[in-house]
């Protein structure tokens, strides 16, 4: 086992060596521009891009002509939301989204709202982080032109009832965008079955390279049109200009192919490992609380709040394990995780949360080490915590008059 251990696979994933192998020829040897129609260099690049497009489309049960390459999921989210709003502004300006979306969706919608270009409804989620499809239905107005709900949450891994939401969208004739960045490659995604019209996802979350993503744009029933947000040479059927990063796209394609072939095996292995991590920690440490859905969540996700200890200090005590926390101290905003807050998790427990993100390359001995370390550091920091001491003395912490600062 090598240290440090990477258990932050929601932030990014290591690239699969098999992906790198397929990419390498496209840097030096086959360097052509996929848009060069008049020579062999261009043809080779274009052919590679089209193979990748098919591999990607196959994973999500789409047609390869429905894949628009972008720089990543953030750009895909921006393109989907702004592109739809610009295209359909005659029809309306209302967007329905949820309070636990990724910032790439939330900030895009908020920015449009701020500029007076859109009105938005931010749906609440239940205590597990799930959007209720009936809430979506109730929020629809005559002005609604887009529903944007994520597939799986990046912090708590909860998987939304996307199919039900897609059905409602279809029934009402409203476009449905899904940010599926965390889900694609990890859980089965079928844009037909799920009724998705636009879908964002990214290569680096599924063992592919950073810097490339895609927006699925439905071609029929209905044919979705979007206004390009980056103008130029008219690449990607006019929806996203810019020379295609051929090596990245080739890697993205391979990553999708591998995910398709190995998803069931990976998911079973990760779920077993994750469940063992969860059970061992919960058994050893009282007052540890699971955040997110107990079962309906991503295979590699585990988010736990450890009462009486602060998240950043937990991370500091586990320097050789790469993890993430919902603590304010780890964010730029000094506010604890808005996702956890949206589930109704108290601010103090949001400060105490740790996200474990398991991935394809994690091994059992790394999980053993992590279990040992977590128990050690939580115990040590609780000994150091005045809150733990008070709780042990029987003081109700909620009854204490704290001097908030």
């Amino acid at each position: 086992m090598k240290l440090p251990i990477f258990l932050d696979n929601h932030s990014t994933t290591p690239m699969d060596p098999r992906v790198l192998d397929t990419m390498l020829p496209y840097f030096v040897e086959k360097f052509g521009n996929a848009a060069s129609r008049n020579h062999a260099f261009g043809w080779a690049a274009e052919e590679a891009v089209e193979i990748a497009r098919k591999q990607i489309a196959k994973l999500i049960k789409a047609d390869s002509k429905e894949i628009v390459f972008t720089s990543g999921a953030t750009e895909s989210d921006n393109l989907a939301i702004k592109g739809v709003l610009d295209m359909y502004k005659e029809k309306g300006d209302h967007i329905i989204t949820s309070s636990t979306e990724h910032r790439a969706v939330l900030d895009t919608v908020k920015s449009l709202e701020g500029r007076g270009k859109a009105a938005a409804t931010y749906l609440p989620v239940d205590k597990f982080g799930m959007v209720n499809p009936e809430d979506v239905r109730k929020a629809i107005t005559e002005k609604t032109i887009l529903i944007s709900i994520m597939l799986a949450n990046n912090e708590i891994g909860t998987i939304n009832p996307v199919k039900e939401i897609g059905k409602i969208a279809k029934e009402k004739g409203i476009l449905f965008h899904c940010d599926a960045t965390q889900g694609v490659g990890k859980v089965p995604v079928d844009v037909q079955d799920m009724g998705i019209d636009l879908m964002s996802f990214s290569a680096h979350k599924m063992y592919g390279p950073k810097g490339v993503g895609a927006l699925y744009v439905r071609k029929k029933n209905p044919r979705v049109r979007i206004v390009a947000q980056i103008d130029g040479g008219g690449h990607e059927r006019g929806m996203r200009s810019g020379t295609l990063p051929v090596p990245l796209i080739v890697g993205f394609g391979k990553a999708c192919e591998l995910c398709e072939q190995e998803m069931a095996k990976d998911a079973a292995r990760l779920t077993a490992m994750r469940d063992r991590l969860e059970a061992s920690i919960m058994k050893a440490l009282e007052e540890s609380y699971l955040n997110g859905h107990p079962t309906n969540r991503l295979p590699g996700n585990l988010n736990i709040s450890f009462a009486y200890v602060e998240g950043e200090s937990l991370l500091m005590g586990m320097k050789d394990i790469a993890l993430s926390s919902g603590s304010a101290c780890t964010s730029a905003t000094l506010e604890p995780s808005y996702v956890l807050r949206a589930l109704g998790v108290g601010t103090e427990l949001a400060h105490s949360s740790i996200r474990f993100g398991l991935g394809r390359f994690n091994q059992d001995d790394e999980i053993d080490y992590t279990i040992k370390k977590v128990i050690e550091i939580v115990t040590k920091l609780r000994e150091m915590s005045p809150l733990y001491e008070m709780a042990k003395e029987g003081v109700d912490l909620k009854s204490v008059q704290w001097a908030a600062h």
Partner: protein
Amino acid sequence: MAYSDKVVDHFNNPRNMGSFKKEEEGVGTGMVGAPECGDVMKLQIKVQNDTIVDAKFKTFGCGSAIASSSLATEWLKGKTIEEAQKIKNTDIVQELNLPPVKIHCSVLAEDAIKAALADYQKKADGALAEAK
């Protein structure tokens, strides 16, 4: 964020971590911060003949908060009440090399020192009044 070596040292080897009994004679207790803000510090001093002979802390918070309170106990020991009053948060910032986002940890530590001193004073005054 990278932590300074001193913050890491205090975090890994906290000085004077623990508690005195609040009722014990000569003990002053300061508790500052709030759980929902992500940091709570409890700082205690034990005073004999106007001198702080011992100090202890317990902290819920980030590494810098833990280091700030650990350092504060180190500095308090051996100081007179008057000298202890003069410890400033900026001294802590400088000693631990805290980045701007962590300055509030040092402020909290200074508040905790002041609160512990005030609590000791209150208890001492009360004892004096009783004796009279």
